[in-house]
């Protein structure tokens, strides 16, 4: 079995900290580079808060399963939720060249996710949103 962890959280923003704590422990146990751990913290915060705030809006409950797997040269994290169908990567890219006054922050989180991960993908499968994130482990 490959090293990793799997956990399920409820539709509560405070639960994101639990996922980040679990990932930090996993990163520590396998001596992952700090930059990989930090990038994944940023990305988990962006995607999980999006799902919890928008994906589960207007309903009670909801859950997200987080699964992290360590492979030889990469970390793969899969986020599965039963919220409304939503492809986080199907949105327009924000204009980051605009001056402060004209800047709207909206899609910035997803923009960070795309750039901080090496691969991202989205599938709608069995009434669930499935987002797969890949971060390669490069030499420090």
């Amino acid at each position, binding site marked *: 079995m490959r090293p990793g962890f799997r956990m399920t959280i409820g539709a509560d923003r405070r639960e994101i900290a639990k996922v*980040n704590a679990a990932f930090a422990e996993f990163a520590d146990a396998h001596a992952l580079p700090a930059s990989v751990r*930090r*990038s994944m913290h*940023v990305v988990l*915060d962006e995607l999980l808060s999006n799902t919890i705030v928008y994906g589960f809006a207007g309903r009670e409950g909801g859950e997200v399963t987080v699964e992290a797997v360590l492979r030889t040269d990469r970390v793969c994290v899969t986020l599965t939720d039963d919220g409304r169908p939503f492809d986080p990567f199907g949105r327009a890219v924000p204009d980051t*060249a605009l*001056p402060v006054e004209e800047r709207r*922050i909206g899609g910035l989180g997803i923009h960070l996710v795309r750039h*901080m991960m090496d691969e991202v993908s989205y599938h709608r499968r069995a009434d669930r949103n499935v987002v797969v994130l890949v971060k390669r482990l490069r030499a420090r």
Partner: protein
Amino acid sequence: MDIATRTRNDVTIVAFGGSLDSKTSPQAQQALDGILAGGGRKLLIDFTALDYISSAGLRVLLATAKRLSGVGSALRLFGLNETVREVFQISGFSAIFAVFATEADAIEGL
């Protein structure tokens, strides 16, 4: 998250430690709002002990920058680690904010 505030002459230095994300950004916003409400116009943000920042944290910085524009005011940052710098670059924040390596560099000419 840890927030520590100190002053050097008319400059307020706010140090954020830990993470600046969806969970902690309201606390950070509150601290910065308090400084602005107290009349602080020259602000240095110390990220030396900051592990990472997400878009929720960037939003706090942007809101503070918008409120701090005008004569005699300044907002500068220093001590960004590799990941925080990367987030600044990707988001275009490197072009908006004055980012320095150390406190001494950041405070010079303020």
